[in-house]
């Protein structure tokens, strides 16, 4: 991880490959064979990627990684609970939020700030679509991936890249 923090992509790739079975075991120990387990494994890998700056080389890697994976599992449980509560409401207004229903998308009704709209419009189509579906329209990664027709992992990476570009653009506008 210390090499990855310095930008060594090969070492990082190797590390992720090496920890994948352990991450998978840790997630499946809590979620068993729940269909969302693969999603959670990917979320855990993304969290490890995002939190890599918090690893201190003089500290053991195992507890650091396990904490992040554990929280990815906790987030998944919370997400599942939230979604279960929301699904009742969604059933009641079925079709209202369906982008194919001819209704104006919720995203546009939400009146995003002009700066955010401008930054969004500058993103490549693939990234913008992923950010809109996951971050702004609140679809789950699995739902959004089905809509776009790509794998959840690929969509997550698109959303991650889009979100990063968006943040960089908004910061650039501020300064």
């Amino acid at each position: 991880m210390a090499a990855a923090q310095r930008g060594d992509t090969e070492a990082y790739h190797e590390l992720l490959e090496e920890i994948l079975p352990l991450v998978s075991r840790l997630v499946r120990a809590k979620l068993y064979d729940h269909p969302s387990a693969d999603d959670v494994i990917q979320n855990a890998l993304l969290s490890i990627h995002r939190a890599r700056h918090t690893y201190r080389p003089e500290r053991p890697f195992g507890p650091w990684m396990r904490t992040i994976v554990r929280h990815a599992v906790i987030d998944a449980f919370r997400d599942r609970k939230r979604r279960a509560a929301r699904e009742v409401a969604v059933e009641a207004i079925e079709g209202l939020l369906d982008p194919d229903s001819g209704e104006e998308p919720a995203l546009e009704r939400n009146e995003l700030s002009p700066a955010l709209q401008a930054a969004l419009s500058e993103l490549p189509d693939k990234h913008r679509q992923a950010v809109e579906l996951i971050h702004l329209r609140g679809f789950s990664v699995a739902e959004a991936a089905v809509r776009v027709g790509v794998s959840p992992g690929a969509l997550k990476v698109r959303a991650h890249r889009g979100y990063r570009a968006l943040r960089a653009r908004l910061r650039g506008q501020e300064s």
Partner: protein
Amino acid sequence: MKQDQQRLIAQLSEDLVPVRPIPRLRFSLGIVLVLWAGLVSYVAYGGRGRAALGGALSDPLFAGVLTGLVLAALGGCIAALASGTPGRESLARRSLAASGAGVLGSLVLASAFALTGGSQGGDTVSAALMCVRNGMVLAALPAAALAFLMGRGWVARPMLAAALVSVGAASLGVLIVHVSCPLVDARHIALGHTSVPLVVLGLATVPLGLLLRRTAR
């Protein structure tokens, strides 16, 4: 799905940019304590310090509350910083226990002295409110420093982290009040000094938690 994971790993590796690791916990704690020491010297050189601190230390109430607040301050700050660093949960838990013991111990001690006749009465409330206000003002800088340092980390539970920041920073702030306040009345110390961490905990946890939720992780 295995293929998706492999693809994700490849894309994350491709996306990799160098990052600077967060500072060591003791370094972060050092920054907070140096800022706090600056506040102490500001109060001391501003002529608001207690004339004879040495004499006050022989008073069991003063010394007991001082010890409790030191424990609460160090425990709170260490627990807050540890809660923003993955893998330091054990340290966070131990520091949280120390901090809780410090806050409650000093509060119970001062209340016990007040109830057993250690209070001379007088205008306790307005003087206590003044000390609470001063303690909160002096807590602002350590709280800002802690929140900034934690914003660079990975805070899994923002509300808990915010509670720890509140207690740690408030205890640091009120420590200065405790050593500089000329009043030694037990009721005043209970109301105006030992209550500050709990007051700040109640007032600052939610806004700080919302801030940490936006900045960290």
